[in-house]
């Protein structure tokens, strides 16, 4: 059996002890040992963005992050934003705009978008596109995603 060690991770505000291989990536630990399935393995190379998580407030690739390095850091996945107004607005607009098709990229997109809107009181369309350039989508062609984020930005500003 693969040797596991006990790691203390702070996920979505809650400190948890997880048994996970010492050299596991965060993607593996989250999916296999913590039952967090919203992070997806699209490439395991850090290119597609489906594995995006927020580490200390910044979007990173969970497939390239060693879980062992995350001890003591603040880790968030989409599940951690249930009470967040910006995220609620983003979800609502993305749901309506046509920006969700197969949905595989969606969690990563929402996390990248939320981070951008949370730190930018004056978001721009170009800024949104830059914030999302690390989230590949093969279905939508991006316009409906970018529109949804811009619409959420307007709503949040109010």
């Amino acid at each position: 059996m693969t040797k596991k060690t006990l790691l203390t991770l702070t996920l979505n505000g809650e400190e948890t002890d997880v048994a996970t291989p010492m050299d596991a990536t965060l993607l593996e630990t989250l999916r296999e040992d913590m039952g967090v399935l919203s992070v997806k393995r699209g490439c395991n190379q850090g290119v597609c963005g489906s594995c995006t998580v927020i580490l200390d407030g910044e979007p990173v690739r969970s497939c390239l992050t060693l879980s062992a390095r995350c001890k003591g850091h603040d880790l968030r996945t989409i599940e951690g934003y249930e009470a967040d107004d910006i995220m609620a607005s983003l979800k609502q607009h993305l749901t309506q705009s046509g920006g969700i098709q197969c949905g595989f990229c969606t969690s990563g997109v929402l996390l990248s978008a939320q981070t951008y809107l949370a730190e930018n009181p004056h978001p721009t369309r170009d800024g949104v596109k830059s914030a999302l350039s690390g989230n590949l989508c093969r279905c939508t062609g991006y316009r409906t995603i970018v529109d949804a984020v811009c619409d959420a930005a307007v709503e949040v500003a109010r």
Partner: protein
Amino acid sequence: MTEIYTPKSIQEAISFLAAHPDARPLAGGATLIAMRNAGLIEASHFVSLSEIGELQGIAKTGEGIRIGAMTRHRETAECDLLTGSLAVVRQAAGMIANRPVRNMGTMGGAVSNADPAADYLPALACVDAVVTLAGPDGQRDVPVRTFVQDWYETALDEGEIVIAITLPAPRNELSLYRKVARVTGDYATASCAIAMDGDTIRVAIGACGPGPIRDTEAEETLRGHLANPEAVTAFAGQLAALADPIDDVRGSAEYRLALIPRLIHAGLRQMKLAEVA
């Protein structure tokens, strides 16, 4: 199973690497973990450099601007100290991949990996940066321009790590980085880092050989003749003669050679316009 060792000082890291020949230093993980995931490397240990204070941060020093090896691309891309002649480095950092990768990748990691198509090395070569290495025999400095010795091979000896990259103090000059790539954030098909200092330019070409291509003698010959297109073309020819491009999925060697003079002329035009403005 790879074990993870997290030293608190450069010395601890060096000692551990010396004692464990199958251990690999781990900077941001953007490259190393990707390679591990693809089954391309197997290490007994990852020596994580993330807790070593001396490797962090960008600071003004007597020599210029010192960028710690663990400085993330994002920090470099947002650093106000990198102005004028150093703006080219900041621009290059901002064009690497995308935001999440820039949150993870480090200058030390990128420089050590020496991917011929990556963005830092031509920009650093253009500004005459110096790489500081630390190893069992102590610390030493290597100019970026001689740091890359062959395809994916650097001046790093067994057991050495990059601890900082030092740039000369910024001068009030124009500089810019341009990369030709298939999509936003892709590695460069070819790139050009260019700085203009009154009557001469410094140019480093990327992705056209194992390391960045620069020719200071040719730059000196060009001094005072920037307005002469033939002189610029001859200058570009010198750089092309030093280039050793390959055919790969991003483009052919021929295309890269064709781009060298075009990027230089275009870069010069762009800077002349900026000068006038």
